[in-house]
């Protein structure tokens, strides 16, 4: 019965002449490198939120030792988060064909009998459930999140973060067990075992090399139709990516928007010249500033991008406004401390965000009043928004209503 080729437990059930340890090994080594980069850039993005700075920045308060490596996120180079997060998302999408091909290439093993040859083998198979389930869970939650399709069971940040650690635990074990064989097989340029090789292959429709080129070509197509969402010049080439295609508007405020004023529930009545006041609190008490008061302070310019956790970014925009350090000085801090920034936004995980002292101190960190020579548009945060070099988009709080300087 074991050898009845009508059953997937029989090697004869699997007919493709492409399967074999060489094909699997090549794909495995590509994933070894690619997933390592994904994991590292993911950890970097986690650090970029400065979760240890204040509870408002921390979506995973029970992280424990998983935050062991956290460091103060720097403000330079200003394109740092644009690069790391653009890499994370673009590479993730590019690797999907490789992942699917790799899973296809080893699927006969899922059904192989006996289910376990030894205790170690049984445990390895349990670990493979974490590996395959974890990989698909991470790719799926990531792909859905960048399309704003929040159907997964919980908040994206803890799911994707803890899921990544479960996955990487299984991934490292798998890599340690399999990489030596994979390297040997790729060096030998042929199958080094009969495992996965069909005992009664169909006549080939494509060579193994051809199959590999097809996988590579698929990755190339995904890369080419996604990478443009990180560049204003190439945005139209990102044909299906969420922030590809055309910009939402033309003119100085026409660049990409993360969340519009309408989405954030900003009432135009609260942002009018008469109604809006910025409350700045610090060592010497609180001051209330109108937009005219702010425009009367020394204004500075900075050319900085917007870079989103969703893996899209804009080119440098020309921001003009009051330096955060000058606002800190206004309330008694000549040596800039941390700051808690609160938006007029009613709901949403990042209606409040904390910035660290090094971010406040950077002379390019602004409470911006203008973008590209015009007043901010409502969707970009009018009357005033934060812009900090290299910070993730959501920490560049829009529609700022209150800033509280001091140690958080």
């Amino acid at each position, binding site marked *: 019965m074991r050898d009845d080729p009508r059953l997937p437990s029989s090697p004869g059930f699997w007919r493709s002449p492409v399967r074999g340890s060489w094909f699997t090994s090549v794909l495995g080594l590509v994933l070894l490198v690619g997933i390592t980069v994904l994991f590292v850039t993911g950890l970097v993005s986690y650090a970029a939120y400065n979760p240890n700075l204040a509870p408002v920045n921390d979506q995973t308060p029970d992280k424990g030792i998983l935050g062991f490596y956290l460091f103060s996120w720097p403000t330079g180079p200003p394109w740092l988060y644009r690069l790391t997060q653009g890499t994370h998302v673009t590479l993730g999408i590019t690797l999907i064909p490789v992942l699917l091909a790799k899973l296809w290439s080893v699927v006969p093993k899922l059904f192989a009998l006996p289910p376990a040859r030894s205790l*170690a083998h049984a445990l390895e198979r349990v670990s493979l459930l974490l590996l395959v389930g974890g990989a698909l869970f991470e790719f799926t939650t990531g792909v859905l999140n960048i399309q704003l399709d929040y159907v997964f069971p919980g908040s994206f940040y803890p799911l994707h973060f803890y899921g990544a650690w479960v996955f990487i635990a299984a991934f490292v074990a798998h890599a340690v067990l399999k990489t030596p064989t994979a390297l040997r097989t790729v060096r030998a340029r042929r199958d080094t075992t009969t495992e996965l090789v069909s005992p009664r292959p169909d006549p080939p429709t494509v060579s193994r090399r051809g199959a590999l080129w097809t996988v590579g070509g698929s990755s190339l197509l995904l890369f080419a139709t996604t990478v443009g969402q990180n560049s204003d010049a190439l945005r139209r080439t990102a044909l299906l990516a*969420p922030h590809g295609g055309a910009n939402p508007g033309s003119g100085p405020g026409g660049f990409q928007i993360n969340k519009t004023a309408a989405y954030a529930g900003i009432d135009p009545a609260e942002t009018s010249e008469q109604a809006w006041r910025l409350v700045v609190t610090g060592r010497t008490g609180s001051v209330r500033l109108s937009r005219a008061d702010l425009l009367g302070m020394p204004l500075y310019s900075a050319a900085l991008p917007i870079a989103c956790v969703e893996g899209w970014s804009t080119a440098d925009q020309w921001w003009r406004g009051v330096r955060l350090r000058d606002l800190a000085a206004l309330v008694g801090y000549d040596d800039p401390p941390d700051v808690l920034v609160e938006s007029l936004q009613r709901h949403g995980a990042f209606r409040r965000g904390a910035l660290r002292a090094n971010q406040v101190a950077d002379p390019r960190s602004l409470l911006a009043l203008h973008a590209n020579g015009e007043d901010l548009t409502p969707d970009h945060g009018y009357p005033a928004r934060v812009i900090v070099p290299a910070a993730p988009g959501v920490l560049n709080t829009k529609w700022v209503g209150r800033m509280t300087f001091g140690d958080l």
Partner: protein
Amino acid sequence: MPRRVPVGSPLQLLLLACSFALAGYAGVRLLAGDWLGVALWFAGAAVLHDLVLLPLYGTADRAAVRGLDAAGHREWTPYVRVPAMLSGLLLLIWFPLIAGLVDERYRSATGRSTDGFLARWLLITAVLFGGSALLLALRLRRAAKHRPPAAH
């Protein structure tokens, strides 16, 4: 005497124990909220892929190969398989945008509409299949040219 269960490599056992401990540490945090939903998503992703998606595209591929084989043109397989695979892959990844599942949220959040996604995917699909047909036609023409004239 009953046969003893083979243990396997002790190094492998240690490695896996270490891996499970770390996965467990992260796993209890992953499952801290809607544990059933998360567990279903985690295991469901593997099950759906291995027992639904993969057999589905495997069967479709085999049917296409058989059909072309029956028509005597097995060598045309890549010209059908590659564009179908690329188009299907794009649909799989960008399904929420292409199907307009997130239209309202996307529109109100980004200030843009999802209207173009379906059209762009269809156009890409048309280009892929059209390009493939063109390549096949060129190949057939070249083959016809190099074929020796039929004997009378």
